[in-house]
């Protein structure tokens, strides 16, 4: 039995070791080294990269990333919960609707983000239509704004919110909702007193997924945000590409990981206590 279990676990354990633990070790090592003249790393060992982190510019970028991720997560909850509820209650059509939520994944995220650029830019579809209808006199700048970044993040990660919430709602015992109505709860009371509290595990799981994804996002802020709304993912990316400062990029990555871990600790602890 134990041997069988070991065999079943082996593939994922190997995969995690090869693609997560070893790279993590490499990143840790890089973060303590000095940048090479053409990228890459070289000796000597140093703490300098960490000493550079508390720069106001970097802290601002980190703060902005946290803020955008939090706003996007909140918007995903607000939009994702009703959608998940609709899915869970749509009877025999639910598989069709579920497929519609997943279908966008068939297209590359990059292509979909480019599509948003075409929609949002000053000569884009939305501005053109608004100007043509006479609602706007002049096209206004939507692309390269925080709005565009958050829109892109919400658009991109909404399914990660919808699916876990849907999973909890689908398992929700219908008789609990009937019992609530039976005891005098109107539909909205039943929603806030019974359905939402009982779907908290799904909301929390979705929030964790979306928040982490948004915090580390670099494609969306890069394409939709431009230079003014740079997020920490872009900063890390820059260190490895144009800045050719791999050690500092590694230190930034580890900072990001530390922040995520600190933020998730209370969530994971509650989960362990079985409160969810």
């Amino acid at each position, binding site marked *: 039995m134990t041997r069988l279990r070991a065999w079943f676990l082996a593939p994922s354990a190997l995969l995690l070791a090869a693609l997560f633990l070893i790279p993590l070790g490499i990143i840790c090592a890089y973060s303590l080294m000095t940048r090479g003249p053409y990228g890459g790393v070289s000796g000597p060992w140093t703490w300098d990269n960490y000493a550079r982190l508390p720069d106001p510019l970097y802290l601002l970028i980190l703060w902005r990333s946290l803020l955008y991720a939090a706003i996007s997560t909140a918007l995903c909850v607000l939009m994702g919960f009703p959608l998940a509820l609709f899915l869970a209650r749509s009877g025999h059509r639910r598989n069709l609707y579920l497929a519609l939520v997943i279908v966008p994944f068939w297209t590359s995220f990059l292509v979909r983000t480019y599509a948003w650029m075409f929609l949002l830019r000053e000569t884009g579809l939305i501005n053109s239509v608004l100007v043509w209808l006479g609602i706007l006199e002049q096209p206004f700048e939507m692309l390269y704004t925080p709005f565009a970044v958050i829109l892109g993040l919400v658009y991109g990660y909404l399914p990660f919110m919808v699916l876990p919430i849907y999973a909890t709602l689908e398992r929700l*015992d219908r*008789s*609990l909702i*009937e*019992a*609530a*109505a*039976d*005891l*005098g*709860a*109107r539909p909205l*009371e039943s929603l806030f*007193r*019974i359905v939402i*509290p*009982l779907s908290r595990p799904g909301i929390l799981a979705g929030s964790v997924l979306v928040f982490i994804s948004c915090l580390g996002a670099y494609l969306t802020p890069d394409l939709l945000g431009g230079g003014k709304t740079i997020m920490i993912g872009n900063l890390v990316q820059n260190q490895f590409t144009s800045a050719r400062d791999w050690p500092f990029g590694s230190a930034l990555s580890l900072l990001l990981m530390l922040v995520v871990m600190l933020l998730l600790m209370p969530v994971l602890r509650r989960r362990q206590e079985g409160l969810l």
Partner: protein
Amino acid sequence: MDSVLELRRVSKHYLHHRAVDEVTLSVPRGSLFSLVGPSGCGKTTTLRLVAGFEQPSGGELLLNGSRIEHLPPYERNVSTVFQNYALFPHLSARQNIEFGLRRRGTADLDSPVRKVIELLRLAGKESRRPHQMSGGERQRVALARSLVLEPDLLLLDEPLSALDPQLRKQVRMELKSLQRRVGITFLLVTHDQEEALSLSDGIAVMNRGRLEQIGDPEQIYLRPATRFVASFVGAINWLGNVGVRPESTRIAQTPPDGDLRSKAAIVRSSTFLGNCVHVEADLGDGAMFVVETPRDGDVFPPGERVHVWWHPSDEIFLPEQP
């Protein structure tokens, strides 16, 4: 008689079958009334129609003389004890009990809640969550949660089926005495005829969406209106148009005298059941005739030629359906 609930030709049709078919029924105030029948007979659907979870396809539902079929569940003064109890898992026992009162905006929660907690012996368990309670405790919380609202009618869907068999008989009697104490009308759904007979003031037997018979337990058992009822509420031997229940039947070596009815038979099996002996006898045509005799009588080994007999007054006359 004053009735709390009246059903007038109530139907519930689904695409391909009639779950409830023109059921007319009235439930007397203050009684413990049971809907019994095999699974799929429409009894639970009937209960759900009364609670408001389903909409009738036709007919009228009256609670205290007023039509209720257009009212949503939260506007009907009936309350349901669900088969699985449907306690809110994220709320404590007390919060579950308070739920309905809070929805009504009752100002003084404490005294009714305290009363019902005492009534159902839940003192000390108030802060427990449903998963920290035993099956019996959960059931009592479900009852308390409904009774605290003082509904006109309490609906109970197979209330004993989720309990251990040993507990079931005890809780059955508790349920009946609880009903007597609170005086609220109970409408109970069960597939267990013994449960219905032992608990109820009135019984409605359902089969395939239709009512077969309404009556008190004695009428249902001793004077069943249809062969279905006769067979459903207890074992019965059919001899043409006449039925005899096993416990009204005896076995003797020789044919009995007088105006007793008897048949010659061969014993096929004899099973000791503790309180009686269950004998299966072959009347010669291959049909099994079941006899339950007191265990202090003679012993009849398989293969023995005997006579089964009964009093004519114990016969139930129900012609076979043409």
